[in-house]
């Protein structure tokens, strides 16, 4: 009788370990879990499993948690960056020059999010930049800062963002982009200009 009770306790313990490890592997508790598919292009990182055909239980569970209702890769791909060119964390207290070129997609945009992955709480109406404002034929430059520096020029507001990141979205990317994102992405650079506290 005692042996049976011990085995039941062991079975319950095993079930808890199994369920807990599954939740961790799916990135639901304790971090990002198993990530097999990150790609990194000059600091712009993308989980290439999001928007793909789900293959295997780990990927399916991860997509359910981190890419619910995500667009398919043919519709959109996403890259996120939270550091400037020297590797320092992006911060509201600094000013940056974001620069780049056109992207291999029908349409693209760059949006700023705070550390909680939310749009920062400000009413500047300058949370993103898109191809309709940069044009398609030439290199572009935009200021990323908490206050607008000049009336003219492109600007993304980081006011009330704290530590933030930028997400680059490519809508209807080219087939070449889908096949070889590292070669095709025109990764924008982020140069720090100055910081309030340095």
């Amino acid at each position, binding site marked *: 009788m005692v042996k049976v009770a*011990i085995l039941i306790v062991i079975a319950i313990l*095993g079930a808890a370990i*199994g369920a807990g490890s599954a939740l961790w592997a799916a990135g639901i508790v304790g971090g990002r879990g198993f990530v097999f598919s990150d790609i990194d292009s000059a600091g712009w990182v993308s989980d290439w499993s999001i928007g793909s055909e789900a293959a295997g239980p780990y990927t399916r569970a991860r997509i*359910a948690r981190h890419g619910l209702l995500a*667009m*398919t890769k043919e519709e959109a791909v996403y890259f996120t960056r939270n550091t400037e060119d020297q590797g320092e964390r992006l911060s509201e207290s600094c000013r940056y020059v974001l620069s780049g070129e056109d992207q291999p997609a*029908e349409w693209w945009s760059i*949006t700023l999010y705070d550390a909680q992955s939310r*749009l920062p709480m400000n009413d500047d109406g300058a949370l993103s930049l898109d191809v*309709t404002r940069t044009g398609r034929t030439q290199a572009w430059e935009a200021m990323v800062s908490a206050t607008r520096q000049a009336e003219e020029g492109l600007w993304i507001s980081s006011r009330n963002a704290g530590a933030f990141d930028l997400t680059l979205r490519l809508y209807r990317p080219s087939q070449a982009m889908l096949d070889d994102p590292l070669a095709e992405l025109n990764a924008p650079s982020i140069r720090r200009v100055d910081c309030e506290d340095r």
Partner: protein
Amino acid sequence: MKGVAGVVLLVSAGLAHWATLELIPGAIMSRAMDMMAERGIPLHSFVLVPRATPQNQTVVRPSPDLAYSICRFDLDQVSLWLDVEVAPYPGMSSVSFFDDQTNNFSVVAIPIGEAMSFRLVSQRDMEGSGLAESTGSILAPSQKGLILIRRLAPNDEYSYQVNALAVGDRCAPPSPANVFEVAPEG
């Protein structure tokens, strides 16, 4: 005893690990659909979600570039199929169909300026009905799920257009006239 205990531990951990992974997508989708219902998104009707702003955001990483219209479906509650109509839009748009396991089982890019119609049919119920052969039919692998129309609307001008035309989106059981057209086959 030690050997048996080890086997029990490994088997129970393995089974629980596998079962949890299998259950996660369905549980997350079920919760998402319940939350949408609580927020007033009814069954079988498209609801245009307001463009994301810092003040109204309800999900993480909302895209301020896109306008969303959402329809929850439950094919157990329709007699034959669900008619889905997407109103024409002068910008980039698409319609995606998700099953109750979060899988995007169909996505269609909508040509600029064109309307499109679909017939959503239950894969479970379609055998022998002839419905699947109908033009524009999409087979749903689960009875419940979501239909999502996305329209590129990066500024107020586009948003006004979406607000005006999205009332033409339709997600509803067929009208009696359409049912009559198909009824003789059954």
